[in-house]
């Protein structure tokens, strides 16, 4: 108890950094996933090639390796030093963005062709079709996978302590060195990560229910706030599975 009282502020600081990295990485990943995923569904071969190369490259290389490259190799190459936090967000965003782009591409392609035909019959432009019909429908399909990706991203932020960022994992190690209490020092960090994940899961599930309602589907597993309390099921390590 005394331990908690003394150390909690430091954990909070570390967790705050973890949250910042998660939000920053997720924002970058989301933008990349949308832009590059949509490119992959156009009829221009060069656009689809960009998508393939991006997806295969950044899915193929571990985020940690990309982060090391930005922190250590990039300054050597350009003489320009990146803030480690920026490098971390960049690496995480590129990695998760690559998985996300594939999700976006697949979800758009899964919108029934008949829906696209209806937009042709109403003479929508490509932009209108995307904005008004295709993306809103694909959105509901992307969300569950996005949810899993956000959890994976949050977990992946833990590698940043290796480049000197004082996140939750880093705080746990510092406190462990200071107190010698490995089990407690790490235990608190584990619980905080777990809670953070639960918050993300709840948030994503609320988004999913809203998107489902828009498409006239009943919320999964009964409606209302109670549906949010279903046992979470972070199942697939996403993008990986397809």
């Amino acid at each position, binding site marked *: 108890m005394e331990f908690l009282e003394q150390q909690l502020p430091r954990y909070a600081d570390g967790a705050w950094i973890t949250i910042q990295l998660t939000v920053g990485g997720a924002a970058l990943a989301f933008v990349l996933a949308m832009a590059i995923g949509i490119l992959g569904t156009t009829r221009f071969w060069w656009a689809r090639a960009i998508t393939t190369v991006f997806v295969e490259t950044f*899915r193929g*290389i*571990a985020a*940690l390796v990309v982060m*090391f490259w930005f922190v250590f190799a990039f300054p050597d190459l350009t003489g320009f030093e990146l803030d480690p936090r920026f490098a971390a967000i960049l690496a995480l965003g590129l990695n998760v963005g690559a998985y996300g782009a594939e999700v976006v591409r697949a979800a758009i392609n899964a919108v029934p062709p008949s829906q696209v035909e209806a937009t042709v019959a109403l003479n929508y432009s490509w932009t209108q079709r995307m904005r008004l019909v295709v993306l809103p429908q694909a959105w509901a399909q992307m969300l569950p996978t996005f949810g899993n990706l956000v959890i994976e991203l949050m977990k992946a932020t*833990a*590698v940043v302590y290796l480049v000197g960022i004082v996140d939750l994992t880093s705080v746990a190690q510092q406190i462990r060195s200071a107190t010698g209490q490995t089990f407690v020092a790490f235990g608190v960090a584990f619980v905080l990560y*777990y809670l953070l994940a639960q918050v993300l899961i709840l948030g994503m599930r609320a988004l999913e229910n809203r998107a489902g309602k828009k498409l006239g589907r009943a919320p999964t597993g009964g409606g209302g706030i109670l549906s949010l309390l279903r046992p979470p099921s972070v199942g*697939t390590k996403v993008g990986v599975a*397809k």
Partner: protein
Amino acid sequence: MWDFQFTYEAMPDLLSGILTTIQLTLIGYSIALVLGLLVAVVRRTPIIGGIVHFVMEFIRTTPLIIQVVFVFLMTPADISAFTVGVVVLGVHYAAYTAEVYRSGIEGVAKGQWEAARALSLSTGRTWGAIVLPQAIRKVIPALGNYLISMFKDTPLLFAIGVTELLTQAQRVGSESFRVVEAYTLVGFLFLAVSVPSAIIIRRLEKRYAAV
């Protein structure tokens, strides 16, 4: 400019790193395959199943790297970093493969269970001869994806000093000050393994999806 001399000289070290990486992946993956299946079956029992589910959930929602470091610090010093790394990797991924097996098991038609019961097959035979063969066949591609995924997570073992690819790159890079080459080569070596594997998995997917 790119230093080809360095590339040439560093290659043996990097290749030995990737060899370790592949060893880690294969052993860790075997653990994940066996343990995950065990978990998927045990999860169907009351109480113990609930506890196992919670533990797996906990493992899935906390970072692998802090798990690795934690276990490494908690184990006696005479257990090697390689062993710790491979076991933690395996257990962490078992939490994922268990979900894959579970979806496969749930995908087996109810009629199959009922037919097994109608033939008075024992529980063991029902699982071993009827349910699991059908369930596993369906999830082979999904399981395959975790092999690639695990391969890409091995650099995390850098944190406890396992001499895998990233660790080797950092060593040769800092000894020779050729950091750009070292880390870029790591990237290419990762691609050299993961892109062909992804293609193989996609083939598998097609083959098993056809059934």
